[in-house]
């Protein structure tokens, strides 16, 4: 009896890697050549990742509206389905059936390509994220660098949208977005570097493994006071700025420039921008979890549950920030990036390097 429970628990604990192994074994049994099995498994894991991220995105839109509703002392969506649970599906159908409008003097090709260029990198980021023990679609040696490289393409999509719409508000929004993302990318990279230095690897899998520690909790980078905690804080500040979310939502500040670079978009193209933004928000939470909150590390519960829980906490913090803080002014924004966050991140790297060197020299 006890054995049966233990077996069942270990099955649940490693559910997804076990499923993948069983499926691969089954495919090999059908007489497919080796590369065919590999290709099929790669396609399948990509499909699973994309579908779960899509579901996560639908869930986050609902969560955002519900949580913000409660924080503003109202109920949020509660009419579509039980407790308003089907609201995201209604929204998705609305995007699909709305008219697609392209302004007369817009650059038609660039206008159409912009939302695609902005949304695709947000999906690509998920390829390297370890969702659980042995649950990364591709654990690259250069994982962190890959994330930075791929997500830097998003800026081009935003700038394309701002320029191609041929609208002054779009152009202003696109310029603001580009300036903001370039400025905050520097401290963002520097704070991610702290996690890389502590693990001695750019691979996300290795970074998570390096955060084991006591009970799978005390080794998290965020608990390595002071530099780990500081890096986590600067990362979160810069990540919110990269996402163009409140308090850094100047590129789409409704009260000043309509909705910035998205002003001239409608229907599915608008939906793609929206999709990209939420994909990015979840990706940023997943990266924060991986780099600073120990990824899937944690006691008792299965790794993927820990990972999902931590991502949900960060997503909640993002929503909390949005409903709490007012918007920055343009002049404050740049000053904050270059005069406050960047020096802190830079000094933090120096302190981390010194601490690692001292540790290696005296303790080991």
């Amino acid at each position, binding site marked *: 009896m006890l054995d049966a429970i233990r077996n069942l628990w270990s099955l649940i604990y490693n559910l997804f890697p076990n499923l993948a192994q069983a499926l691969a074994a089954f495919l090999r049994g059908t007489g497919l050549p080796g590369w065919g099995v590999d290709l099929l498994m790669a396609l399948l894991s990509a499909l699973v990742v994309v579908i779960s991220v899509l579901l996560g995105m639908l869930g986050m839109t609902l969560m955002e509206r519900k949580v913000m509703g409660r924080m503003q002392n109202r109920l949020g969506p509660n009419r579509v389905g039980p407790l308003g649970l089907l609201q995201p599906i209604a929204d998705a159908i609305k995007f699909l059936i709305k008219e697609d409008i392209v302004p007369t003097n817009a650059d038609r090709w660039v206008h159409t390509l912009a939302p695609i260029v902005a949304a695709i990198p947000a999906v690509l980021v998920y390829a390297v994220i370890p969702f659980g023990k042995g649950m990364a679609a591709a654990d690259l*040696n250069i994982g962190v*660098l890959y994330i930075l*490289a791929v997500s830097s393409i998003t800026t*081009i999509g935003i*700038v394309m949208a701002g320029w191609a719409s041929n609208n002054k508000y779009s152009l202003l929004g696109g310029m603001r977005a*580009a*300036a903001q993302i370039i400025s905050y990318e520097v401290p963002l990279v520097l704070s991610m570097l702290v996690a890389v230095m502590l693990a001695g690897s750019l691979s996300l899998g290795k970074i998570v493994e390096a955060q084991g520690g006591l009970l799978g909790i005390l080794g998290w980078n965020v608990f390595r006071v002071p530099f780990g905690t500081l890096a986590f804080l600067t990362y979160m500040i810069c990540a919110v700025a990269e996402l163009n979310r409140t308090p850094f939502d100047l590129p789409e500040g409704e009260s000043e420039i309509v909705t910035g670079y998205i002003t001239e978009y409608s229907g599915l193209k608008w939906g793609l921008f929206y999709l990209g933004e939420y994909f990015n928000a979840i990706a940023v939470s997943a990266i924060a979890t991986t780099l600073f909150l120990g990824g899937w590390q944690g006691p008792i519960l299965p790794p993927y549950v820990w990972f999902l829980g931590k991502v949900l906490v960060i997503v909640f913090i993002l929503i909390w920030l949005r409903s709490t803080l007012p918007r920055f002014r343009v002049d404050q924004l740049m000053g904050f990036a270059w005069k406050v966050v960047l020096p802190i991140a830079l000094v933090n790297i120096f302190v981390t390097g010194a601490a690692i060197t001292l540790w290696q020299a005296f303790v080991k």
Partner: protein
Amino acid sequence: MAEPAVYAAFFILAAVTLGGAIAVVTARNILHSALFLALVFVSVAGLYVLLEAPFLAAVQILIYVGAIIVLILFALMLTRRITGERVRQTNAQALPAALAALALLAVLGGLVATFAWRVSTESPPPNTVPLLGEALMRTYMLPFEVAGVVLLVALVGAIILAKER
């Protein structure tokens, strides 16, 4: 990996790179040129991946697409008149330009064809990042630091030039 897939990927990437490069110089609108240049950079990064140099590929996208193209677009958007379609992007120097380009192609092509390339049958190391780090921070420390100082000087110079009004 299966050989035919690698060849197919190479030819697709090469076609995109060359097509994009032609589009960069023939596009009527300078902003389109910049966007095609981004496409070329991305497909060159793809070629690096095929050559099993993922670090180089990631850096290529991070620096050329994420920084340089964005800066080009930013500068173009700040000078709105250039991006208007009324401004001519070309001048009447097509023939001399073609001759100069052909001469450069001949020199480079000749060099590539005649140079004794060192060929190795060993497979590349699986993880090149530590090797690169060792090379930059130990073996070639001085040139690396000098490059950093030069960049810093350029940065300070740019700020001083921009401040003088």
